[in-house]
């Protein structure tokens, strides 16, 4: 009764005209006919695509920092925040000489998101203390097998040459809102302070 649209079913006997069903058939066909002149509800995907909402959350990206090193440190907070338990990771220790590859002492050797499990809620992005994972406006591809939906680092980590643009959703307002996080964990983001910020070495 919430919508006020529920109707009580009546079981009264139908009249002769109603029993013929013809008026009902014609009125139905008339509705179908009028739809020929109405604007189509569908579009010709994939040639045409609809405009994405500004806050659309699609396929994830693992960002690199300014020097091209992976930001993810395999802290596991995205995995623990994930309500669908779609994220798994295995961490490893960075060896001397790999500083250009990984920003922190520890990094994700394996990082997998099961795109079939993912509900694109963005909690992983919210949880990430290292500004590493973001949801982008890219769509997840379709495949024939389930296995292919498990995205590993080869798909998730952005390439050094073509960084993924995040400015659509990570607007200055959003960044301002997230400033606390930058302050604590990511020295490079702290523009307001001239002195070296603690919490990172």
């Amino acid at each position, binding site marked *: 009764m919430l919508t006020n649209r529920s109707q009580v079913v009546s079981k009264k006997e139908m009249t002769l005209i109603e029993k013929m069903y013809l008026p009902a058939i014609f009125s139905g066909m008339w509705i179908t006919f009028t739809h020929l002149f109405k604007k189509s509800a569908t579009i010709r995907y994939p040639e045409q695509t609809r405009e994405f909402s500004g806050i659309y959350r699609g396929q994830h990206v693992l960002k690199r920092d300014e020097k091209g090193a992976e930001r993810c*440190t*395999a*802290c*596991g*907070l995205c*995995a*623990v925040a994930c309500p669908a338990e779609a994220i798994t990771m295995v*961490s*490893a*220790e960075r060896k001397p000489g790999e500083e250009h590859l990984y920003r*922190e*002492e*520890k990094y994700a050797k394996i990082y997998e998101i099961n795109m079939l499990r993912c509900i694109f809620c963005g909690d992983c992005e919210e949880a990430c*203390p*290292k500004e590493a994972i973001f949801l982008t406006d890219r769509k997840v591809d379709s495949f024939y097998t389930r296995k292919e939906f498990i995205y590993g680092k080869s798909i998730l980590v952005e390439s050094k040459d073509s960084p993924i643009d995040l400015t659509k959703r990570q607007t200055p307002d959003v960044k301002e809102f997230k400033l*606390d996080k930058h*302050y*604590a*964990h990511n020295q490079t983001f702290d523009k307001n*302070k001239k*002195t*070296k*910020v*603690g*919490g*990172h*070495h």
Partner: protein
Amino acid sequence: MAKVTIDGHMIEVPDGTTILQAARMLVDKNPEVDAKVAPPTMCYYSKLKTSGGYCRTCVVKVTKGSEKDPRPMPKPVASCRTNVMDGMEVVNITSPEVLEARKGVVEFLLINHPLDCPICDQAGECHLQDLGYEHGLAKTRYDFSRRTFNLIDIGPYIKLHMTRCIMCFRCIKVADQITNNRFQGMLFRGDASEISTYIEKAIDNDFSGNVIDVCPVGALTDRTFRFKSRVWFTKPMDAHRNCTKCSGKVAIWMKGNEVLRVTARKDQWGEAIDWICNDCRFEKKDAKDWVIEKPSHISRHSVISQNHYENLAQLKLDIGKQQKQIAAKK
């Protein structure tokens, strides 16, 4: 015997008991008393003699000195080093002044502590993390660079992150009291002090691994567990084995059927119940080595309690009962 009132709860304790011990007794005996009435500790460890008195986390206010001398104590006192008097009245969480003082202490503890929890293996079971969380210190007011050290390997099993150390002295007390051959100590003084060891004379004492358990932060960590998994993805199980050196009663931290880490069992204050030997801790990483008793008790406020079911058998019974009830209704 002395009667002492802590946050309005009265308890009678033997003479010579400290306020902290009395508060813990109070919580142990009365389940209805908020566990936070017992002050948090970073350096005091009930199983280590002469521990405590360094960190000041356990400060409380004495509003009435004793029955004979009811004057309040002029400043907040360290409850781990102050003995109770008959008729003493103490406030801890009911006093905003104490909470403010403790907040200041936590801020001092965090001054040189790096914010590398995403990397640190202790994260999720770290007492300093809990303390910082409790007091809402998400930001630092400290503008200078923090002191940093290179990592030190204390023997093949233990890693020392001096950068994370908060100078609680617990590990030194373990080395003094539990092992028969002290292998590390404090060098230098004041803010320059650091834990150090003769690396060449790397320790091979059977109980040296216990320094990992007593460390309230991630300064001393298990090298065999280093970066293997975050603690909240592993399941702690109480297990035992026949060990000639120690009691053999441990908690094993499992992921699937793999034993990733072995630690001592912890009581509700986060202290080891039995010291365990290095053999049990570092060498027995096969599930076949252990007789698993039951899932360890984890406070439900801990992140480790996620997906950790302590009484799975009972849970299954309850679900079965409910399903039967639903079926009966139909």
